[in-house]
């Protein structure tokens, strides 16, 4: 099975190299049969990578410890579900998984665009194949998951195959359902940006820099953005329920590496609207998608190079050098294309006024790039300080929060204001008409915050802006439904549905914006977090905030994979009993790692978060840590609403579906009359 896997990677790499040559040469020479052959090769590459992934999965499920990867990331007693998840639990397996998703996207791109008559698609597939070939080179030569385990028996003796009785097991932190799905979603996001990047590079190569490449790349970008966003959210959820430090975002370097392409991807998704409507910001759009791709590859480089220490990071390895070289070459080529094609990227229009929708999108680009740069600087600063001063200076949450909170709030402001402004120029009279109620609502909330005792400026501002944006979104839907109702006579709900169905991109976008509002409300709750702890024996009590805890028992527990202690705590709030909570401390025997099993009591208003931190000195008392986290549930709800809105924007409009049907009929006619 390992030989099958190894050979599959070799064949995939060979066909990827051929695809790369055939697609670029065929397109340049105008020989469509050659590019068609290249397209077929793209499908074949996906087939062989799938075979390699299947082989590794079988080895993991069979617990074949003669393979080094299986011995490192699995063990006999591991649950079957987690044995399969070990596929992406380690460096080599996750890189193979990355290749699989990339070649899958390539195959889909080839299939969906198989009848496209121009040269944009073969160049696009050529760039995708180039990235695929790079990752397959890593799979084959630098991080091969099918390497056999060998033992050094001494000087003068050849290395001999070695099969341990059991494996090291999967990192216990990864043994959680959210963690199982988190890496695949992130990869679907990261890797998904390869396709719009490829469209962009193809447009630069063919000098076809109108809105055509943007229209073709739009749904790919949205899909990648959706998966990356959901992956980041799930990662936060996993960190919240598994790591036991009371929070969900630590500005960990690897977390930051996933956030950066999401930020620039967000800017791109908004900025392309301006190019489509006004033929402006062409350079911005090209630079944004190129940057998003480079940051996605950089994120992978960061996680796998060993340059950063993180709960997410893989062990240090030489593949960092491969990534560095690829980043430099690809980045250099992209910059060369942008510079030599700059004549084709000139805007056809100028900015007429700062009180315009174009201006709000431009500000949006600037603010998101500023946030991305701030995060990037904070992430790489430790490496730079070590290089320059010989000392690694870590950058913590205070730096990131100080910069990103005001940026995030300004972004929230733009979210409310931007859609209300007219294209080109909005007069004062129009602004008065559209901003009156949202501004009034924001003011009311601001006053309520002050009267209610909220002393944090940012928290009060956050709630006020949330009110402003919510009112603008509701008014957009209301006005649209009413306008449609007046012109067609439909009832309001029907009119609202039709308006959304006809323009899913716009109204799906408003749903995403509303999700963002909920997300920010959830983040704002962090300003009011209460923390406390108690050292308790059975029968002891302690209080944190409005909650009282009584320790009823501390018991030993075990499982084939771990041994542990479980605390039984009775919980009251304001004197009323709420029930019992059972936080645990576990020790995983195979990997020799300790974890905390957090217990959370969730409500829309706040979470009660309880951790069994361990035993005090002398093992006499149980140490229980408690956090009261207001509004945190709205982070998860906001994320889900954003995901739902994104799905709505991805769905085709009624008009698009009709156009697609007509296109398919035309294609069928063309096929029937094609020369043989």
């Amino acid at each position, binding site marked *: *099975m390992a*030989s*099958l896997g190894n*050979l*599959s990677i070799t*064949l995939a790499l060979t*066909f990827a190299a*051929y695809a790369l040559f055939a697609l670029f040469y065929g*397109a340049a020479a*105008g*020989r*469509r*049969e*050659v590019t*068609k*052959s290249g397209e*077929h*090769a793209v*499908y*074949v590459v996906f*087939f*062989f990578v799938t*075979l390699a992934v299947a082989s590794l999965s079988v080895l993991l499920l069979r617990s074949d410890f003669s393979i080094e990867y299986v011995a490192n990331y699995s063990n006999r007693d591991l649950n079957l579900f987690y044995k399969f998840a070990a596929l992406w639990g380690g460096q080599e397996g996750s890189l193979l998984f990355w290749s699989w998703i990339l070649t899958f996207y390539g195959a889909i791109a080839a299939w969906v665009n198989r009848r496209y*008559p*121009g*040269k944009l698609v073969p160049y696009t597939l050529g760039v995708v194949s180039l990235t695929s070939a790079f990752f397959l080179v890593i799979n084959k030569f630098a991080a091969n998951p099918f390497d056999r385990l060998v033992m050094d028996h001494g000087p003068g003796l050849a290395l001999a195959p070695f099969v341990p009785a059991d494996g090291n097991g999967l990192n216990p932190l990864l043994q959680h359902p959210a963690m199982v799905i988190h890496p695949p979603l992130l990869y679907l996001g990261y890797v998904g940006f390869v396709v719009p990047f490829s469209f962009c590079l193809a447009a630069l190569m*063919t000098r076809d820099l*109108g*809105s*055509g490449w943007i229209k073709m790349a739009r749904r790919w970008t949205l899909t990648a953005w959706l998966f990356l966003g959901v992956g980041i959210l799930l990662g936060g959820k996993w960190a919240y329920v598994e790591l036991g430090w009371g929070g969900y975002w630590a500005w960990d370097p690897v977390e930051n590496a996933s956030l950066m392409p999401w930020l620039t991807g967000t800017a791109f998704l908004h900025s392309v609207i301006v190019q*489509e*409507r006004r*033929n402006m910001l062409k350079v911005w759009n090209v630079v944004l998608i190129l940057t998003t791709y480079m940051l996605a590859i950089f994120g992978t480089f960061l996680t796998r190079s060993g340059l950063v220490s993180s709960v997410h990071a893989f062990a240090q390895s030489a593949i960092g050098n491969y990534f560095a070289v690829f980043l430099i070459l690809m980045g250099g080529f992209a910059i060369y294309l942008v510079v030599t094609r700059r004549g084709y990227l000139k805007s056809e229009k100028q900015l007429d006024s700062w009180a315009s929708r174009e201006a709000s999108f431009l500000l949006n680009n600037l603010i998101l790039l500023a946030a991305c740069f701030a995060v990037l600087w904070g992430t790489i600063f430790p490496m730079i300080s070590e290089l320059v001063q010989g000392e690694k200076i870590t950058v913590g949450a205070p730096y990131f929060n100080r910069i990103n909170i005001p940026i995030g709030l300004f972004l929230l402001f733009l979210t409310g204001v931007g859609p*209300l402004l*007219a*294209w*080109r*120029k*909005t*007069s004062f*009279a*129009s602004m008065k*008409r*559209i901003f009156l109620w949202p501004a009034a609502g924001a003011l009311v909330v601001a006053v309520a915050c002050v009267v209610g005792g909220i002393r944090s400026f940012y928290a009060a501002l956050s709630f006020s802006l949330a009110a402003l944006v919510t009112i603008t979104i509701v008014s*957009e839907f209301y*006005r*649209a439904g*009413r*306008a449609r109702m*007046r*012109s067609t006579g439909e009832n309001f709900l029907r009119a609202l549905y039709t308006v959304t169905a006809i323009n899913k991109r716009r109204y799906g976008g408003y749903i995403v914006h509303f999700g963002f509002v909920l997300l920010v409300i959830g983040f704002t709750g962090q300003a009011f977090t209460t923390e406390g702890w108690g050292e308790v024996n059975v029968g002891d009590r302690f209080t944190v905030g409005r909650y009282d805890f009584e320790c009823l028992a501390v018991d030993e527990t075990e499982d084939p994979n771990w041994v542990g202690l479980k605390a039984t705590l009775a919980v009251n709030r304001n004197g009323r009993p709420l029930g019992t909570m059972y936080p645990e401390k576990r020790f995983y025997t195979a990997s020799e790692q300790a974890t905390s099993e957090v217990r959370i009591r969730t409500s829309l208003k706040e979470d009660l978060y309880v951790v069994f931190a361990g035993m005090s000195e002398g093992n006499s008392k149980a140490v229980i840590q408690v956090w009261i986290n207001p509004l945190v549930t709205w982070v998860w709800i906001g994320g889900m609403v954003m995901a739902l809105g994104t799905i709505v924007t991805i769905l085709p409009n009624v008009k698009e579906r009709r156009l697609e049907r007509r296109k398919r009929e035309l294609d069928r006619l063309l096929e029937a009359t*094609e*020369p*043989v």
Partner: protein
Amino acid sequence: MELLAIGLLSTLALAFVVYPLLNPRRYLYYLDDLLGSRDEIQLSFLHARKRLVFDNIKDLDFEHEMGKLAKDDYVRLRNDLMREAEEAVKDIDRAQIRREIDEEIEGEVRSRRRTK
């Protein structure tokens, strides 16, 4: 057994990849080359621009119906877009006339060559 399977699969894969090269006339030329004249490319660009301006006018009308725009703003913006639409239509007419003239000239040249 594994080697036999991979050998068979590789052969099938190679056949699949080579197949288009064996029958090149089955595939049409690229539109970019077949219709490679500057005029055709220019015409398709102008049509796209016209569609864009018409979409913008439709959106503007709807935003006015929604009550988002003051009357003066609406009139000013609509007039600007109508001027753009007029220019786009005129540019299309000019490009079409130029293409017709080019085709007539080419036709003349071809018929003279045949006569010779």
